[in-house]
């Protein structure tokens, strides 16, 4: 019996035997668990150090400064650069898929999710089929399918598939327009954009004040956007078009200009966007449906229009319900970028494995790979938690 039983309010005469005492069982379980975890960790660490010593493998991180020895696919990374830099490229390559992937999946998922609630039969069925097919195929299968069965079957450069002058598609990758800045007036133009933004916000505030004072519709969003675009266009013309789109053009044996996505990256991007958007669609649908029916009835009874009901009553509540689960999907997408290793997309895991193959120490490298993914995931968690906190606060 521990000292804590002395201070217990319960009568000593009625204390059960210690093996049936809930409080003692609880403490014993926790102590037991702690001991087990500690023992396991000690055993693993001991095992690792002993084996590393026996095998003569280094345990320090000094190798990070040594030359990588191989170039990296789809980047101008040189083989002489140190491993440290190669790993950073790997990290960057995760973000290069994850960030646009999350945004695209969110947009598609929202549209499909709302589509599943449409009153239009065709839209509803199409959205339903999209979700049911995509969320039930393993993402790795989709990835390999897009890589081998689609992207590698694309025509050679000379016969590129084109979308007007804007995009090129061939076996060497997907080429999209990129934004080109002319060095001189570009910074000035960014100043103009800032100014336009401020002007739009001021207009929005004024329109809101007018709405509050008179009840006349404010239309602050369309008016603000119009003002922003107007000022931006004028500035752009006045500064001699400092910002332009650079279109990809076939130049001899290569493609000039534009943004190139290597097939490996395109495959990971497409597979993960399709897969994740199907889950986001379900979250969107579920969240809208989870808003109580009485909320819709009360809105209707008050004479709110369908749009007003969505904007002021249903969506704010649905958003609150959806945020935590949507955050999980963002995390999943980010971590799933590591599947890219199967199509040799040079994300962090692929680069780490390649280095291990070239004789660099595996434990440290895999530790770095894990830490890299962990750091990105924690960053995304932080974002969604902040969003979640804000929404919850406006609730209570």
């Amino acid at each position, binding site marked *: 019996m521990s000292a804590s039983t002395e201070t217990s309010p319960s009568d000593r005469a009625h204390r059960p035997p210690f093996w049936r005492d809930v409080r003692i069982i609880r403490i014993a379980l926790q102590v037991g668990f702690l001991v087990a975890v500690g023992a396991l960790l000690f055993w693993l660490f001991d095992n690792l150090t002993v084996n590393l010593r026996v095998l003569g493998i280094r345990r320090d991180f000094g190798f990070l400064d040594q030359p990588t020895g191989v170039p990296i696919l789809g980047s101008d990374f040189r083989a002489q650069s140190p491993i440290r830099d190669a790993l950073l490229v790997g990290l960057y390559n995760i973000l290069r898929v994850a960030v646009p992937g999350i945004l695209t999946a969110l947009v598609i998922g929202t549209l499909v999710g709302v589509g599943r609630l449409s009153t239009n039969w065709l839209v509803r069925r199409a959205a339903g089929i999209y979700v049911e097919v995509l969320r039930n195929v393993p993402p790795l299968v989709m990835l390999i399918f897009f890589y081998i069965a689609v992207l590698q079957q694309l025509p050679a450069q000379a016969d590129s598939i084109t979308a007007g002058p804007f995009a090129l598609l061939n076996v060497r990758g997907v080429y999209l327009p990129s934004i080109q800045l002319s060095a001189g007036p570009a910074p000035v133009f960014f100043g103009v954009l800032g100014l336009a933004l401020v002007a739009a916000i001021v207009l929005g505030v004024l329109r809101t004040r007018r*709405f*509050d*004072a*008179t*009840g*006349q*519709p404010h239309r602050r969003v369309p008016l603000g956007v119009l003002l922003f675009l107007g000022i931006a266009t004028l500035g752009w013309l006045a500064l001699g078009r400092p910002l332009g789109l650079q279109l990809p053009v076939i130049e001899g044996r290569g493609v000039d200009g534009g943004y190139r996505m290597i097939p490996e990256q395109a495959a990971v991007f497409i597979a993960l966007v399709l897969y994740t958007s199907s889950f986001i669609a379900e979250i969107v649908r579920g969240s809208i449906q989870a808003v*109580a029916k*009485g*909320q819709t*009835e*009360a809105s*209707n*009874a*008050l*004479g*709110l*229009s369908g749009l*007003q009901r969505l904007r*002021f*009553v249903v969506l*704010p*509540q649905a958003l*609150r319900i959806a945020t935590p689960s949507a955050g999980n999907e963002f995390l999943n997408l980010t971590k799933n970028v590591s599947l890219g290793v199967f199509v040799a997309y040079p994300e962090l895991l692929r680069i780490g494995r390649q280095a291990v193959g070239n004789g660099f120490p595996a434990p440290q490298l895999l530790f770095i790979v894990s830490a890299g993914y962990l750091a990105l995931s924690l960053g995304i968690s932080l974002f969604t938690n902040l969003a979640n906190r804000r929404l919850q606060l*406006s*609730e*209570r």
Partner: protein
Amino acid sequence: MTESTLTGKSMDAGGTGETMIELTGVEKWFGDFQALKGIDLVVGKKETVVVCGPSGSGKSTLIRCINRLEVHNRGRIVVDGTELSDDVRDIQAIRRETGMVFQSFNLFPHLTILENITLAPRQVRRKPKKEAEQTAMDLLTRVKIPDQANKFPGQLSGGQQQRAAIARALAMEPKVMLFDEPTSALDPEMIKEVLDTMEQLADSGMTMVCVTHEMGFARAVADRVVFMADGAIVEVNDPETLFTSPQEQRTQLFLSQILVHPS
């Protein structure tokens, strides 16, 4: 149903004698199930009509048809001269003129009480913010919870929430108020505060249709009581007559059950 005597009473507008709501031959099906079997009822301006009857008799369905939360399948519904049709403009017009109070309050949980009350006046009636807030505060004072204005619904007691819901409906300055068992979800000590609010409202000349089993309220406030069973109106009369000497057997049975278990 075939009772021939009741049509007279149910089509006899009380209040000022002018018609506010007119239902003729209203029928409503849920699939194969007929929930309303030809309802004829006229509610006069400034009249208070209480609807009672056993569970499942169609009381909620009836008043929800009046502001088109349910769509009736046959018959005519005219509110203040506007007939309910598939025309969105008519539907919106009628919804603007009718306030509704629900059993489960249905306040918007993400908005404060003040925002709950001013939302529709500002967005639908396009009232200036100050004016809408002033009206809201006046109404909150009238339902005796002015100090709850900046709280969220979840922070109020049931009775306070229901009074806030009444204020929200009144803020649209409706000509008709519909109540669907507004006190059924409340603890006994809160029922009175809501009923007092409703009684005050009736005294101020509001046209009201109330589904409720509060006999005390019906006696004190109602001009007429409508007794429904199985989707039809069985008996309509002034409260005193209906409660003390009901004509129909069905009414007698129902009243005896209620009086044994007063709510």
